[in-house]
């Protein structure tokens, strides 16, 4: 792109940005949008934190599909995995090794805490899963061989339950006479924790596989 075109492009974007900014300023911003409804239904949701309630109950279907997106990205990466050259990493860094040895256990605890605390305050499956995946990436950085065959196998097994448990819970609620993902009121809290727990594991394993691992699954062929 030549300089003139760049400037023209920048100018155009500036004009658009300015226009859009003025539009944003006209959004009323009054009222409570859905806040009052969320708050009104919060006691029925099984959790005390509003965001978690939206994420896993009111709009749990979005979260369900979000797990499908993760799975999809994994499948996609798997389809691309053949014949890619993994550049060998320079893993001989003492500081990193020391750091990782200290950090990984802490991160696991933090992840568990995040999952648990999600019911009351900010936190939850994704945050916990992301932290776990981070721990895994750190491990891979300093020791690519840590994913032994056995670890790989466990990792594979853990990819799917996030979606599957969510799905089974949804189906169970349909069999009990509700709609899909309509948890029975008195069990909502525990069901959400169950769903989140498996979701966290699957998120962690999936993210780690996507960013650090080499998705090469057995599956026979």
């Amino acid at each position, binding site marked *: 792109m030549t300089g003139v075109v760049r400037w023209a492009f920048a100018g155009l974007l500036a004009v658009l940005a300015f226009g859009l900014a003025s*539009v944003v300023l006209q959004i*009323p911003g009054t009222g409570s949008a*859905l806040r009052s409804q969320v708050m009104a239904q919060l006691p029925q949701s099984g959790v005390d934190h509003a965001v978690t309630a939206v994420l896993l109950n009111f*709009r749990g*279907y979005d979260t369900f599909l979000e797990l*499908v997106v993760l799975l*999809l990205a994994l499948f*996609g990466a798997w*389809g691309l995995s053949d014949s890619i050259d993994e550049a060998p990493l320079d893993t001989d860094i003492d500081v990193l090794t020391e750091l990782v040895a200290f950090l990984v256990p802490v991160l696991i605890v933090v992840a568990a805490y995040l999952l648990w605390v999600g019911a009351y305050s900010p936190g939850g499956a994704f945050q916990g899963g992301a932290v776990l995946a981070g721990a895994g990436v750190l491990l891979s950085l300093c020791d690519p061989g840590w994913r032994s065959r056995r670890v790989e196998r466990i990792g594979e097994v853990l990819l799917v339950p996030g979606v599957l448990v969510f799905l089974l819970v949804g189906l169970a609620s349909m069999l009990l006479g509700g709609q899909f993902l*309509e948890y029975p009121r008195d069990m909502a809290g525990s069901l959400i924790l169950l769903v989140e727990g498996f979701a966290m594991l699957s998120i962690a394993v999936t993210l780690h596989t996507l960013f650090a691992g080499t998705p090469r699954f057995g599956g026979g062929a």
Partner: protein
Amino acid sequence: MSGVSLLVQPVWLILLPLVGSIMVFLLASRRAAVGVAVVAGNLALVAGSIGRLGITGPWQHSVGGWGAPLGIDLYLDGLSATMLAMTALVSLGISAYSAAYFSAAAARHFWPLWLLLLTAMNALFLSRDLFNLYVTLELVGIAAVALTAMRGQREALVAAMRYLLTTLLGSMSYLLGVALLYHSTGSVDMVLVGEAPIPASVAAAAFALMAVGLLLKTALFPFHFWLPGAHSSASAPVSAALSALVVKVGFYILLRLWIEVFPALGDGVAWLLGILGGVAVLWGSLQAILQQRAKMLVAYSTVAQLGYFFLALPLVAAGGSRVWGAIVLLVIAHALAKAAMFMAAGNLLAFAGHDRIRDLDRVVQRMPLTAAALGLAGVSIMGLPPSGGFSGKWLLLQASLEQGNWPIALVLLLGGVLAAVYVFKLLEHIFTSGTPLGEPRAVARTMEWAPLMLAIGAIVLGFLATTTLDFLIIGEPFVPGRRDDY
């Protein structure tokens, strides 16, 4: 909830292919058999939903039991059911073809992704929630990109990368529009948003953002730059799915937005999109005529055919349901015909090892079923009777003449002539002999029958036009506002 009514819940349309995808992912063998069975099951579920729709009218399913605006509603009316049926039919053809097309190694990657794509499209057609639509759009886009890239050749990878950047850009633009709407109305349910008062400037900006995002995904001229590469370099069944189904989802959402969320759009927008559509028809057709490779020709034909959907938009204000119905008819006809064409072109490629049109060698003798599929699909693409393409074009031509809209009528006719030129450019070379290059490889029978059946479907649609149009308006999808009769 009784057993039967439990089974015809729309949510099964999402769960079945999803579970199927996970299953073929975990399975060690028989992936194709399971995959085809799942897609056939999907068709049966759609048939059940259509049956229920005919009896009870449109209905919704509030996921989580909350209902909009707090929760997410799935909604099934004539329009969504029609799109689901189109997807189910075409998917079955593509699946049957794929079962024979892919080697065991490629099948491993193909089936999980393909079934997730089906999941995503089903979820999209059932959703009435603007944010949920964003998630399903991303699902569709990522699955489509992954399927394109799966082939692994250089061109496919580059095309997939360009496609990915484009589709993500489209999603971002769409989502920003959703953000504006949510904060103006306090809801992401289409009907509720449509009923809420929105400041005119906000509505205009939101529509512009969402429309640009969707047009990028639908590849309306001039946003088509990514399409020919991606659609021609992917493997044949994937090309078929991309051209027949994936590009339609963006248009479907745009259609819903147009009717439900932005009913007050002015004529200017309709004309702008109409002009772009007209240019797409002419430009895409001319490019198709200039192509030397069969798959590129078919891909540019998609650019042209997509144009028709937009070309007709200036007619909907006065034409209403009739014009929308004609557009949807064209959407379905194109889905059937284009899937057939891409798979048939894939057969040419698999058979001869190349798809250069000039060098095609006595195809009609050696692969008569493939030739027939190309011919019949071509009939619908050209808009010749009897075919779905003809019925749709006739109705649009009628509407444009009734409204005295000559420019649209002329583009419709000219587009048909240009389509005849490129379709016969391909067809005339399947009758003649060329220079055989290397020993041809036999093509499996199902790979010949699958496109032929879809092409026949495009012809049969011509005879079912009235039935389809009547079915389509169950639940009045082309009239804005809430409908309480479910």
